[in-house]
């Protein structure tokens, strides 16, 4: 008993010493070094010599007593206005003092081998005391005060000290509840009531705004300013998650609830292109969750469509393709920029824009807009015109601009194979007529087309360019090593690569002058490539004839056939049709056609209205022309259009072949496929190149069945089998 009492006395003494130190610290009184040291000794004694709970219980009681005294003392006597700031000050001081006390508590933890896991560390005890004795009872009031303070701060100026106070208050909740009660307690006691309060206030305030008086535009501006201020303020006070939730509540009441009313003026805004207002409207709508700007997009679509169709309707003239493409580009740039500047470069708007353009380029739309050519052809002709122009000084710039135009327009063309055909045709025309302004842009374009149209197609174009270069080398070599008598250039083109056919070659006897050179060249060439076969394309070969019999000298360009006819008049003034044919030895219709051209050109006069086998022709002695250089075209306008329809026929034939290749490839892989699946697969593979219809595909399937590449399944007519 006696020893027991002594021990207890020692224990109590030690505890009292420790208690004194703790209380001094809590009350911000200074502690001398010896006392401080002694407290360690006391802790040591109490932890080691006594049972665990003693120290722990005593510490808890001390802390709780202190906090309770705080709450009863300072806080109950302050008015509501100063409550927040008083609380904040007390909290800050408490926190600071606890920090000073930390080494003691840390020491207690270190010595406390048993209780750490079960009962929580000593370090948390201070926060727990704060939570249970002070914060919990006052939580609701403090939250309410916090909310109203935030709202007043939003309305009026932001006051830095207030912000500090509010931040401390929020922080105190976070620390006190989270550490002692976990996230759940924190959320229940602080975040939820806080959010509910804020949300309620927003609801009330937003319903008090007289929106109709303000007008949609002004309301949007106001709302945008308010939410920005709100975010600024709350992010300085609350944690991230809470800031987001407060923002959502704000958005709910100020934005989402008012959305429909704000959108009422949307149509007009878009139609009148009131860009500034649209920019604000877009920003406003962006805050609303799960909203994809339907009204805005459909209005935008209508606007673009209207303007696009207007800009390309009823275009006429020789350079209709230039006007078309240029207008298209202008429209595209304008609305793409609009998206970039007003709609925050939103990709879904770009999709809307693309869809409008794609539809505009389709056949039906072009027909309705009164445009004579397809969009594919126009793009090809546009490229042709650019690559022909002789006046532009900078090659690289030419190509860059062309490349941009091409890359913008090409994706909208739905028949890329038509484009390919026309481009090849026009390029071959440029090369043969020597109208290429520079090889660099041509080569760069071929590279570009390789990316867009595939390497097989690009290879054809590259071969054409190579042929062209080789031809000029050939010409140089030939003319340097042979005596010819006339100025001569040759172009040798690989058959099947160039879009020319050797089937409709003009058959006639060329004039001696020409024939001699032909023989010389053939000898020269076949010595180099003795396995090649040459076919002369006289209808493509321009000859320059200097006519000196008139007062003025004329230089006339025409093809070899026409030259042959005119040269006959070198030693006679008049000649009959049949006589001409004895010299030329050609088919009557062809001859008649070409003589008619010469008559049209006024170099010849015919004694009959229509050129026929019975006509006689005189050389026109009174020929006069303002121009010195005269070009006699081998084909009339009508023929050019016929050429175009020829191209389209070639395209259709190509498409059939393409479809068959695709069908065979698909069936080879799948071995067996039902009708609808096959159709769907083929359509997906031809997408972009041209639009294949189900009936087209069906025809080709039938043709392949006839040729025994495919067969029908015996028991199910709808299924096809691949025949290996």
């Amino acid at each position: 008993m006696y020893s027991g009492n002594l021990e207890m006395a020692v224990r109590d003494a030690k505890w009292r010493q420790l208690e004194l130190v703790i209380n001094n610290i809590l009350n911000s009184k200074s502690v001398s070094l010896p006392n401080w040291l002694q407290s360690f000794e006391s802790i040591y004694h109490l932890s080691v010599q006594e049972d665990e709970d003693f120290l722990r219980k005593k510490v808890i009681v001390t802390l709780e007593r202190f906090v309770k005294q705080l709450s009863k003392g300072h806080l109950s006597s302050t008015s509501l206005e100063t409550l927040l700031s008083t609380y904040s000050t007390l909290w800050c001081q408490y926190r600071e003092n606890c920090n000073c006390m930390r080494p003691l508590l840390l020491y207690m933890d270190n010595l406390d081998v048993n209780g750490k896991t079960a009962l929580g560390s000593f370090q948390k005890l201070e926060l727990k005391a704060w939570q249970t004795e002070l914060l919990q009872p006052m939580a609701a009031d403090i939250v309410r005060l916090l909310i109203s303070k935030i709202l007043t701060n939003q309305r009026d100026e932001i006051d830095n000290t207030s912000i500090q106070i509010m931040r401390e208050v929020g922080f105190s909740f976070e620390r006190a509840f989270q550490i002692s009660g976990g996230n759940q307690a924190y959320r229940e006691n602080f975040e939820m009531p806080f959010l509910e309060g804020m949300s309620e206030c927003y609801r009330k305030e937003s319903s008090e705004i007289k929106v109709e008086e303000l007008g949609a535009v002004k309301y949007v501006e106001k709302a945008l300013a308010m939410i920005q201020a709100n975010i600024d303020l709350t992010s300085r006070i609350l944690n991230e998650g809470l800031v987001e939730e407060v923002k959502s509540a704000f958005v709910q009441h100020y934005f989402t609830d008012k959305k429909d009313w704000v959108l009422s003026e949307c149509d007009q805004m878009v139609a009148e292109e009131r860009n500034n207002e649209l920019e604000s409207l877009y920003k406003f709508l962006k805050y609303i969750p799960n909203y994809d700007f339907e009204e805005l997009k459909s209005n935008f679509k209508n606007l673009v469509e209207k303007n696009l169709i207007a800009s390309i309707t009823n275009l006429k003239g020789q350079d209709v393709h230039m006007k078309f493409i240029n207008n298209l580009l202008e429209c595209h740039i304008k609305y793409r920029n609009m998206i970039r500047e007003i709609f925050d470069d939103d990709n879904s708007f770009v999709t809307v824009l693309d869809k409008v353009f794609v539809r505009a380029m389709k056949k039906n739309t072009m027909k309705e807009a009164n445009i004579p050519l397809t969009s594919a052809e126009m793009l090809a002709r546009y490229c042709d015109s650019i690559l022909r122009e002789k006046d532009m000084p900078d090659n690289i710039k030419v190509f860059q601009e062309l490349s941009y135009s091409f890359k913008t327009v090409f994706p909208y063309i739905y028949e890329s194979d038509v484009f390919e055909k026309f481009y090849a045709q026009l390029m071959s025309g440029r090369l043969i007529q020597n109208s290429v302004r520079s090889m660099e842009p041509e080569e760069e374009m071929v590279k570009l087309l390789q990316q867009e149209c595939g390497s097989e197609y690009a290879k054809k174009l590259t071969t054409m360019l190579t042929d062209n270069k080789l031809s000029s080398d050939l010409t140089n070599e030939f003319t340097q090593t042979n005596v010819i008598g006339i100025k001569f250039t040759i172009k040798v083109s690989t058959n099947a690569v160039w879009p020319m056919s050797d089937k409709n070659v003009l058959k006639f006897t060329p004039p001696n002058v020409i024939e001699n050179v032909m023989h010389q060249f053939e000898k020269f060439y076949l010595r180099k490539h003795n396995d090649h076969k040459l076919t002369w394309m006289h209808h493509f070969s321009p000859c320059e004839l200097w006519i000196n019999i008139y007062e003025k000298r004329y230089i006339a360009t025409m093809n070899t056939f026409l030259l042959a006819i005119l040269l006959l008049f070198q030693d006679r003034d008049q000649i009959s049709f049949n006589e001409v044919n004895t010299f030329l030895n050609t088919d009557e219709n062809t001859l008649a056609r070409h003589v008619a051209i010469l008559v049209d050109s006024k170099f010849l006069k015919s004694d009959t209205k229509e050129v026929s086998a019975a006509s006689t022709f005189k050389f026109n002695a009174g020929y006069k022309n303002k121009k010195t250089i005269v070009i006699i075209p081998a084909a009339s306008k009508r023929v050019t259009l016929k050429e175009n329809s020829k191209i389209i026929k070639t395209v259709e034939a190509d498409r059939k072949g393409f479809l068959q290749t695709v069908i065979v490839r698909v069936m080879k892989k799948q071995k067996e496929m039902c009708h609808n699946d096959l159709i769907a697969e083929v359509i997906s593979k031809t997408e972009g190149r041209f639009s294949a219809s189900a009936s087209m595909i069906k025809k080709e399937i039938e043709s392949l069945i006839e040729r025994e590449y495919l067969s029908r399944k015996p028991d199910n007519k709808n299924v096809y089998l691949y025949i290996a």
Partner: protein
Amino acid sequence: MSHSEPIEKNCVGPDAEYVKLISSDQKEFLVKRTHAETYSKTIKQILSGPTNCSEGETNQIEFSQISSKVLEIICNYIEYKAQCEIIMEKGEEIPEFDIPLEEATDVMMAASFLQC
């Protein structure tokens, strides 16, 4: 272990290089502050308390429960641990640290108190 440097210079003020450890029988021991704080958690906690000495005060801790004999051994141990670090970096062997048996229990209690 005492050092040849004058005491005043090194213990004065909060940034002093040494701390003075005083035993129950008023013997003073000087240890490098960094070592003391590294190898005794308690000393570190004590020194980080709210009573940091200001200019002119000496950094000293009085241990009313620890005798000079024990305290001496503790100080030696702290130095020993510091030396070990250097030796280990060089890769040589560590010498042993002997504690005389009579003091062993007292040393253990002090060590437990000082967490070293």
